[in-house]
């Protein structure tokens, strides 16, 4: 079986600074992969590269057998790789409904209509269904700028999921979300994702969240992959514990160690 997403010797330099090097990763359909690493370890750079937002300095990226390099995020997205953002990327002055409707109509196809209205009963119905699935239907008529962080994050992910991707990349889905809401958020997201069958790669600082939701874990350090394997194994890795997590991890008391 060939991997859905594969990188070979991927590297990225910003001037003299090496943001990523020797990154070899394979992600298969249906996998749920956690990503850890301190700030500046190259996690977001990795996501930015595989989605086509940043051009790697060297190396290859294959998605569904096709090279990603030289292609725009929108083209990669059309092939089935979507992402969410560390800071939710929404349309802040519009309402939740308008955000979803825009996302829907854009996801429907490249040839946008000039003349038929965007607001149609069919689209609105679907939008409500999606919002309900993500448990944010109550905010439907509110403007984004007034929403709490958690709702924004969920909406951000919901909009990414609209085009039924094969791979979903989540960049710190719980950052900025209150501790007590993190698990609710992840549970909601993972339920929706499971239903669609997409593979998920999510960047996370909270080891509790990692432990609970990922089956495989990638640990980034200084632009490189330090460890890659089943979550439990990687978490027990000495190097990972000293260099990435910063202290010894007691697998039984993971709570409270998050230091975003």
């Amino acid at each position, binding site marked *: 079986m060939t991997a859905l997403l594969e990188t070979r010797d991927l590297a990225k330099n910003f001037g003299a600074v090496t943001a990523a090097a020797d990154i070899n990763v394979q992600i298969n359909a249906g996998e749920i992969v956690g990503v850890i690493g301190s700030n500046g370890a190259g996690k*977001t750079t990795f996501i*930015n590269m595989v989605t086509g*937002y940043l051009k790697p300095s060297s190396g290859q990226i294959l998605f569904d057998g096709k090279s990603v390099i030289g292609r725009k995020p929108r083209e990669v997205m059309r092939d089935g790789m979507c992402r969410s*953002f*560390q*800071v939710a*990327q929404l349309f802040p002055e519009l309402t939740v409904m308008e955000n979803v409707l825009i996302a829907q109509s854009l996801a429907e196809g490249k040839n946008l209509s000039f003349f038929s209205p965007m607001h149609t009963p069919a689209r609105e119905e679907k939008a409500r269904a999606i919002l309900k699935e993500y448990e944010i239907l109550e905010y439907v008529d509110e403007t984004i700028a007034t929403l709490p962080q958690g709702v924004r994050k969920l909406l951000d992910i919901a909009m990414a999921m609209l085009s039924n991707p094969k791979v979903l990349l989540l*960049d710190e889905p719980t950052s900025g979300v209150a501790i007590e809401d993190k698990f609710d958020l992840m549970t909601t997201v993972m339920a929706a994702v499971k239903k669609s069958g997409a593979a998920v790669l999510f960047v996370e600082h909270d080891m509790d969240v990692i432990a609970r939701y990922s089956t495989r874990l990638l640990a980034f350090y200084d632009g490189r992959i330090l460890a890659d394997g089943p979550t439990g194994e990687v978490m027990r890795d000495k190097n990972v514990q000293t260099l990435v997590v910063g202290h010894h991890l007691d697998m039984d008391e993971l709570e409270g160690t998050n230091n975003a």
Partner: protein
Amino acid sequence: MNLALAVLVDGVVYSSWLFLIAAGLTLIYGVMKILNMAHGSFYAIGAYSGASLIGVYFAGGNPPWASYLLLVGAALVAGLIVGLLIERGFLRFMYGRDEVVMILVTYGILLILEDAIKLLWGVDPYFAYQPYTLLGRTKIGGLSFANYDFMLICVTALVALVLWWSLNRTRSGKILQSVIHDREMAGALGVNVTKIFTITFVIGAFLGAFAGALTAPGISVVPGIGIEVIILAFAVVVIGGLGSVGGAFVGALIVGLSRALSVHLYPDGELFVIYGVMGLVLAFRPQGLFAIAGARKI
């Protein structure tokens, strides 16, 4: 040879003039994110203040050398009064509005100032030629140049140096830099952004008025001179990269030299030079030559 020399001197003289006008504009933009259309009016007010004072001064038969100090003084007073009046009395209530709206706000101020200047000084021309002719001229390679223009180059170099030094080597300059790079962060770190804004605007207004006052001796000060320099200054600032003082310096040099080259070799192209240079620069460097790097977006 003669031609190359003429192009060089003419170009540098024109560049210094451009930089003097553009410096205040780019400083205000860098710190406050306001593209100040009224900057041309500051220039005009500086020119009128300088010229009218010089007229009175020489009519009184005073020692001619002090007239240069008078020009600086006129610009200082005019910049301070107009800058404070506009920033404290009006602009501060508008902060937080969209950048485009702020352009329009300053356009409204420009319209009002244009007529205010007319009401204050009338439409007749003002002359302040004495400081211009007083310094005599120098012959270089068979061509005479006005010494006043050389002085202008020196003053511009001095202004550039002072700006560079105070921005990079002083504490308040570093605070200013931090505001230029990230206003919110600087505010969060306890920088008094309101005070910085007032000071910057007054300095910017002074620089505009200073450019006007120094230009006044070589021209006829008439209604509308302010409007004519706005677009020139805008172009220089865009070429250099908005908010970058160093960029404005380089932008002014490029425009000045290109214009001199065109006047000497292809006079018909003079009208297009500034837009041609701007187009070329933007085509290859869409953010201008020395764009101030923004924070990572995602």
